[in-house]
């Protein structure tokens, strides 16, 4: 694979005595889209949290742009160029839409994304810029969450369940904007329950099952049978 942006090497993760990830390895090429699928509790969110530094891991278990970052705290990982759109959006409720976006850009990492470009990508947010974040619809809140992560100008954007709890038409609308993000050279890792949606945009797919990689490969080579076998361990 050319130009390995992110490498996860034999990653284990624990919550107390419970082991959530076993020996997980994956690679993300610069500018590519990787989908991580799997059933509830398979460890998808844990994987993203480890990459983003929200959970500590072995130093060399996560290598980003050639540098081991597994032991770095979240705020350093963002500075290095990895941004997470957390599950459930997690906007700052006491901040306005624009303030939420500005918080994302607080580090002033140089790059293509500015407030104006976020408003180009999601024009509705420009209209709602002064409103408190919780007053927006679910889809609009998801746009703010994505915009907020983009404001840090990441080389790698991690999206955790961005379709969760949204109407299908809204999900299609949000997924339609993803190519514009990749076009600027940002690589994407998408964790998704909606497999059809995920396969449509992804170059590569990893399927997690009970904390282990059960299936990995190019998105085009994935058949319904292979996925369902990896999903349910049939």
């Amino acid at each position, binding site marked *: 694979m050319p130009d390995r942006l992110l490498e996860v090497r034999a990653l284990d993760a624990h919550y107390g005595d419970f082991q959530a990830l076993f020996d997980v390895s994956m690679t993300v090429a610069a500018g590519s889209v990787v989908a991580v699928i799997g059933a509830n509790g398979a460890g998808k969110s844990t994987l993203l949290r480890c990459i*983003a*530094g*929200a959970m500590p891991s072995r130093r060399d278990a996560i290598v980003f742009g050639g540098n081991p970052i597994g032991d770095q*705290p*979240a*705020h350093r990982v*963002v*500075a290095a160029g990895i*941004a*997470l759109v*957390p599950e459930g959006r*997690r906007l*700052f*409720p*006491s*901040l306005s839409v624009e*303030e939420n976006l*500005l*918080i*994302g850009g*607080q*580090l002033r990492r140089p790059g293509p994304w500015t407030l104006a470009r976020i408003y180009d990508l999601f024009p509705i947010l420009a209209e709602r810029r002064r409103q*408190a*974040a*919780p*007053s927006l619809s679910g889809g609009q809140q998801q746009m703010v969450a994505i915009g*907020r992560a983009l404001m*840090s100008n990441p080389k790698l954007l991690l999206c955790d369940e961005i379709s969760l709890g949204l109407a299908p038409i809204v999900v299609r609308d949000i997924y339609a904007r993803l190519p514009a993000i990749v076009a600027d050279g940002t690589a994407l890792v998408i964790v998704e329950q909606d497999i059809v949606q995920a396969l449509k945009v992804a170059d590569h797919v990893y399927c997690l099952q009970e904390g282990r990689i059960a299936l990995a490969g190019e998105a085009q080579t994935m058949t319904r049978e292979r996925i369902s076998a990896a999903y349910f361990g049939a």
Partner: protein
Amino acid sequence: MMEWLNTIIQGVLLGGLYAMFAAGLALIFGVMRLVNIAHGDLIVLAAFVALVVVEALSVNPLTSLLVVVPLMAGLGYALQRLLLNRTLGDDLLPPLLVTFGLSVIIQNALLELFTADSRKLNAGQIEIASLHIGGGLAVGVLPLIQFALAVMVIAGLQWLFYRTALGRAFRATSDDQPVAQLMGLNNAHIFALAMALSLAVVAVAGVLLAVRANFDPSIGPARLIFGFEAVIIGGLGSMWGTLAGGVIIGVAQAVGAKLDPGWNLLAGHIAFLIVLALRPEGLFPKVQG
């Protein structure tokens, strides 16, 4: 009638000082949910620091703010970074215990260094200057300056919280600490900045206290109580609520003292209990989204 008006005016001016006790408390509770039991003793510490600065440099107490404020802010940053950050977590008890211990340590260290004697800072001629506002009423220039300083501090904090990048970071961290980290904010640093700001306000409050009245190492805990009461009366919604809370306590104390000198403190506590009974969320509660 004029006598009562005078009492209320004095109470309002005193309330400015209480509002400053409260502002520093409200700020750190708002940002990191830390209840600082040592807050009152830090006010007294600031007063003693001012005493040393005034004697060493022979400057006016108000000028000493230029030294005392940065000194206390630096102390706040170090205190948070080296000690208090380690106590923060899901459990509210460790920060309570540690700041309680800190309170005991500060009191005894001050007692050791400065003895139990009452001290006061002398601001010179300005202390006895007054303005006649008609009807035979006069207000002291110094209390007026103190109240104006309190309003400026509160307005400054309000502006900082809602108009600056640092304030935005404070509010985001207060909303959701883990996600704030994901946005590149280092909580340890943000918390330390909040404590530095809190102790900068404490420094102003301490110097004003020291000019206004006698102080000794043991008076900290009572200042903490006044501050707490002002915060709770005001509600945690806005800094202006804190000012209102301080003024209410100040007026209640002044009116109480007017009725019977022994009712001074009691009246303040009763006003607090009445507000707590009628509006437990305070007068200006935080609007929940």
